[in-house]
């Protein structure tokens, strides 16, 4: 096991190396760049700036410079923000994270419950109802869902703020601050949850449908366990195995930001910033952030494999 983990950690190196190549060269293929984006620049000025930013070097050389800096832990310098990329990411990522985390918890909680209930009551009214809701949410583009939610809860009912992270101009501290942020979080979290819940619910439902027919569920019932325990301990434990993989997809997403939702709710998150960086071609920021997510992705895939080996005793990690 330990050997396996070490080996996999070792494999991360070529994987990330491959990712860095792919990321760098893909971005370098994107038409447009930061300097050209400023239409007011004169050609001389552009030429000067090209020189200043090192854009005149061949791509390969630039890649190695970038890689060298990466290895030193330096993600680069954002053209747009005139700050180190790490700092820019740090400025926005945590607000993305709290929303993502809240909606992750909510999504999983609801999806598990709903998935299970609709599996054990397959084809009941409840199951049908849930199915319809799930697919309705799924058939709605996120921006549209966001607009509708804002319209209902912020504009018409006026219950909650329409966007932002804190009340404009407020100087809350301590609990008041937490409360204020929490209030602003509700709608984006709601939207993210609604968007995420559909798929997950379906997965849990199928997994559960597979599991409840198994003999060991019968044994659990024969022990006189409460139905709740039968379902949640015996059923869910097995149904959750495939979910480990699903869960590993969430980890990078926690830090990835939600582009459209953040834009609609004016949430100061990395997703919106990422999009903005894209629109001005702030490549150092784009690449740095993508690389950061790449590391998370690879790490969480590794984690998923390890966890899977632990959670399913039948799957031994083979050498």
């Amino acid at each position, binding site marked *: 096991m330990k050997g396996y983990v070490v080996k996999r950690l070792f494999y991360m190196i070529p994987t990330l190396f491959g990712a860095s190549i792919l990321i760098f060269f893909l971005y370098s293929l994107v038409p447009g760049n930061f300097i050209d984006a400023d239409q007011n620049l004169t050609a001389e000025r552009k030429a000067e700036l090209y020189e200043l930013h090192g854009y005149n070097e061949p791509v390969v050389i630039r890649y190695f410079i970038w890689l060298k800096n990466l290895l030193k832990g330096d993600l680069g310098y954002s053209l747009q923000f005139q700050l180190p990329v790490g700092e820019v990411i740090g400025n926005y990522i945590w607000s993305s994270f709290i929303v993502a985390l809240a909606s992750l918890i909510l999504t999983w909680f609801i999806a598990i419950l709903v998935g299970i209930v609709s599996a054990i009551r397959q084809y009941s009214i409840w199951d049908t109802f849930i199915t319809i809701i799930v697919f309705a949410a799924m058939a709605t583009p996120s921006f549209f869902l966001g607009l509708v939610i804002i319209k209902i809860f912020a504009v018409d009912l006026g219950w909650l703020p329409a966007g932002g992270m804190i009340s404009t101009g407020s100087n809350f501290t301590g609990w008041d601050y937490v409360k204020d942020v929490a209030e602003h979080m509700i709608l984006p979290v709601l939207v993210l949850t609604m968007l995420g819940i559909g798929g997950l619910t379906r997965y849990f439902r199928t997994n559960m449908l597979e599991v409840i027919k198994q*003999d060991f569920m019968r044994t659990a019932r024969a*022990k006189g366990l409460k139905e709740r325990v039968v379902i949640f301990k015996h059923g869910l434990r097995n149904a959750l195995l495939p979910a480990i993989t699903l869960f590993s997809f969430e980890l990078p997403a926690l830090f990835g930001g939600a582009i459209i939702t953040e834009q609609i709710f004016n949430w100061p998150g990395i997703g919106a910033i990422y999009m903005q960086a894209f629109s001005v071609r702030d490549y150092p920021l784009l690449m740095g952030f993508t690389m950061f997510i790449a590391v998370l992705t690879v790490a969480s895939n590794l984690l998923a494999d390890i966890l899977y080996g632990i959670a399913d005793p*039948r799957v031994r990690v083979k050498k």
Partner: protein
Amino acid sequence: MGNAVLDVKNLLTQYYTGDGVISAVNDVSFSIPKGQTVCLVGESGCGKSAVAMSIMGLIDAGSGGVKSGEILFEGKDLLKMKKHELRQLRGNDMSMIFQEPMTSLNPVLTIGGQIMEPLMEHELISKKEAKKRALELIELVGIGRAEEIFNSYPHQLSGGMLQRIMIAIALACSPNLLIADEPTTALDVTIQAQILDLLRSLKEQREMSMLLITHDLGVVAEVADYVIVMYAGKIIEEGPVVELFKNPKHPYTKGLLKAKPVINQRQEELYTIAGQVPNLATLTPSCYFSERCEQCMAVCKEQIPEIRDLDNGQRVACWLYEEVTIG
């Protein structure tokens, strides 16, 4: 029988198959007196497990269910019971050992956890206490290195070990009624003897009643008080063990006893009952054994024989004996 722990009356249990509905248990009635062991024997696929499952109320509604009849456990009809009442009985007052231990244990939970569950559920004891009891139980069913077994997963154990784990789980809460569906098939004879001794002592000390399903006539002879022989979903013969073994009435029962190889009496060819079990989905009103019966008569192919009492406490459903009594 006033002191019957279990009283099954006219049980009809059906399964849905691709060919249609089959009556796996067809109008079966019997009872188990307190402290007695009733053995259920019969052809493979004749509905023994179905009887057990019906009593436990564990047939998945999607694949079939009890259609009619009564199952009185300590006087109360299990079929009319509320879910939570039944639940409190299961694993506690009555428990079951399943036939296939491999698939009956949860693959992702440890053995120990699975043994502890009924203890914590019904005896309301602490986790620590439950663990102690679980370790005892593992020892009790004859597996060494209890501590290690406690922490292992089902796939790490041999078939016989799993079967004993199933036994341990069923015995955990000292049930009044134990339904054991072929509990010793995977056990070597010494351990089998040990387990049977254990069951016998429970029966004697705590007046535990037992419904034992087995095909091992040796086991039947050793532990049963009363034997029921089933064929194609119906009871064809029953009676106290001594009588039945000494003087089997039904041709099928006779065949069974003949077919058993016995040590030190080796023959080149074992006796078999010729023919096949009829398709349960396409039964006609007849004696279901008639096709294979060496003493088949015309009436056997036209009418279902009723089960009736013989004077020595035996009961049999066979036209041979109808005639005798009529005549």
